[in-house]
């Protein structure tokens, strides 16, 4: 990926959406030497051998950035490998991923960080950053060697998907990370209220009688996390909230000036708990799919900037694990391939979210949370660029997705919008035939 590409690209006639520059208009974009060289270059500035791409009717945007992607390696190769995961990422428009630390063994040593980086370099698809564990063995008891992890290249710390349930540890971690200026990612949940749970507690759950996961289990942990952050300062990112209560707590906390950032998973925006009436284990996720009222609050939170990031929440799970009773099936949904199309279908087309805000939440904001140079088409930045056909209609066939696991509940569903081309550092890494 370090090779400087010798091909120059001119993407013409597309609608360029780059929230970092408040840009949303038709224009042309020049990619040269691996960088975004210019927007709307004059004809005189064009090299005479450049490849032209006609993007008429298409959208040109910075490559998407996913915060906390499960890539399977090491230890869960039956679910995903770095090679398949990064290929799914490209097909979904992601040019940078932050790899989750819930591997086996977990990423709690410098060597483990190095392993993922080398595997990703060998796969040579999208950029892969590494998240290290907050605690040793991801066990929530003692701090991991955070300094060494950061030294080895970890860009954030997280025990996710396990919540940081040990309040004393979380406080110590927030303080310790002040030295490194790296964010801690937590998925707020009080486990004693959700033990054995399968789905959101509410009216649907009352009928289908699956074990409940009440919303207050998240609200209480969100409240605690925010309160701690107000004391310690530092950087805390709530990686996936799902309730109206959490959204309101964050809104109030941000109004008081707390430096918290917040993400929401695409699945929690698209699907409500009614989906579990099908008893399809692909809808078993944590945080669970909530009722429509919670979803409305999350979408409002995206629009009023309470919520900063939309994550794919990619949790690939091998078929044999999902083909079980709902109690036994693991949480998780495979989403990298479909996330952008889901945003377009469920949020942009019904006018619940603008293109500009969507790209901001999928690209610029996650890059900012991670502190990585990505998420914009500002001239001089790395040419991580995607082209989207916003009007393409396609039917999801899980076996045709690139992720190694096919635990997508979208089988047979028609989605709108699809990624057509992807450049990473000026190399065209993906194009749809």
């Amino acid at each position, binding site marked *: 990926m370090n090779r400087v590409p010798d091909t120059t690209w001119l993407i013409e006639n597309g609608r360029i959406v780059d929230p970092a520059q408040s840009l949303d208009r038709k224009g042309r974009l020049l990619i040269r030497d691996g960088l975004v060289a210019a927007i709307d270059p004059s004809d005189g500035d064009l090299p005479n051998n450049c490849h032209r791409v006609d993007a008429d009717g298409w959208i040109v945007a910075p490559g998407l950035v996913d915060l906390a992607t499960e890539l399977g390696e090491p230890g869960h190769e039956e679910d995903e490998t770095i090679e398949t995961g990064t290929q799914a990422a490209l097909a979904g428009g992601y040019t940078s991923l932050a790899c989750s630390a819930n591997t086996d063994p977990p990423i709690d040593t410098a060597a483990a960080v190095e392993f993922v980086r080398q595997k990703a370099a060998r796969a040579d698809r999208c950029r892969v950053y590494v998240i290290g564990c907050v605690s040793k063995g991801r066990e929530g008891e003692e701090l991991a060697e955070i300094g060494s992890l950061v030294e080895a290249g970890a860009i954030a710390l997280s025990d996710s998907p396990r919540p940081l349930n040990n309040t004393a540890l979380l406080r110590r971690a927030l303080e310790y990370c002040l030295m490194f200026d790296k964010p801690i990612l937590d998925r707020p949940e009080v486990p004693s209220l959700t033990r054995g749970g399968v789905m959101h507690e509410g009216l649907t759950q009352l009928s289908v009688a699956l074990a409940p996961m009440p919303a207050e289990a998240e609200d209480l942990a969100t409240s605690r996390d925010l309160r701690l952050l107000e004391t310690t300062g530092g950087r805390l990112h709530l990686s996936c909230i799902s309730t109206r209560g959490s959204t309101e707590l964050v809104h109030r906390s941000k109004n008081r000036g707390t430096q918290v950032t917040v993400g929401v998973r695409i699945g929690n925006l698209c699907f409500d708990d009614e989906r579990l009436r099908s008893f399809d284990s692909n809808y078993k996720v944590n945080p669970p799919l909530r009722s429509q009222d919670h979803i409305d609050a999350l979408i409002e939170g995206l629009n009023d900037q309470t919520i900063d990031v939309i994550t794919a929440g990619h949790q690939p799970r091998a078929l044999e694990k999902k083909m079980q009773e709902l109690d*036994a099936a693991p949480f998780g949904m495979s989403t990298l391939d479909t996330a952008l199309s889901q945003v377009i279908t469920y949020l942009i087309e019904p006018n619940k979210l603008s293109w500009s805000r969507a790209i901001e939440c999928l690209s610029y904001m996650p890059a900012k949370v991670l502190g990585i140079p990505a998420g914009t088409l500002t001239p001089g930045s790395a040419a991580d660029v995607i082209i989207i056909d916003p009007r393409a209609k396609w039917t999801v066939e899980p076996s045709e997705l690139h992720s190694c696991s096919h635990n997508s509940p979208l089988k047979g569903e028609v989605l709108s919008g699809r990624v057509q081309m992807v450049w990473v550092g000026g190399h065209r890494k993906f194009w749809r035939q």
Partner: protein
Amino acid sequence: MSHASDFVLPKYPASWQHRHLLGLENLSAGEITTLLDIAEGFSNYFRGGGSKLPLLTGFTVANLFFENSTRTRNSFSLAAKRLGADTIEFSSSGSSVAKGETFIDTAKTIESMGADAVVVRHATPGTAQLLARHLDCSVLNAGDGPHEHPTQGLLDILTIRQHRGSLKGLTVALVGDIAHSRTARSNIWGLKKLGAHVIVCGPATLVSKQWESLGVEVAYHLDDILPRCDVLNLLRIQFERQATRPFPSVREYALLYAMNSQRMRRSKPDILIMAPGPINRGVEITPEVADGPHSVILQQVSNGIAVRMAALWLLLGQCTDSASTQF
């Protein structure tokens, strides 16, 4: 002694579309009535001393029980045998994966032995639906965790109907561990559709106010509702499904909810006392009440066979050409 030749089978209802019986939530009032009418016919025939009916000769019914059960399993077996079907029995307490085999693979294996219908009981909600998706044969839900137990709901309703003629306008109270009860859910769907007023009554930790959204009345005190009830269905406390203990002691539960002689005296004179069983004497019901004149608990058990025969015949009978045969 009745013989098969005395039995006039109702015409196979052309409107019956279901291949599976997964729950009562998705059946219409008409479909439930069809099931009850056919069950009533079987019930009368056997009460008159009838012998086996060869309606499902050549069919195989598999009992797939992943949770302990004696009455439901035997009831389904007997129902299948009375229709002339062969049966396969598979039971495994806990999980099927003791040898590493998944639940679905076990079911597929049994299906490959030639089962035309699989009767499944499992501790997890949705398992019957899961099998219906993965198997080609008919699936009957014999209880999926706390979710549904459609034949139990039907046999309870049939028992009430035999005593009262109709469900319309009756007040039926389900008492006890509502939260963990598949019997409660199946009863609610069925009773509501046939026009009964349903009260769910139990400790607040086992009966949340949210149940009102299903169109039922929620009550915490049995003594308050007792004088209004035409039927009491006393549910067992499902200790095995409770994560944390929902009330302080069995003694306190019995004090507040056990149906005993004193409470009988304050009930309607024609009240029906029902229990899906197994009953815990001294917990939800005292022996005088369980064995008393208002108790129809054993009638429920015999109706269970008739209801399961009706269900098996409706699901499998469309494959036979005996649809209007007289024997």
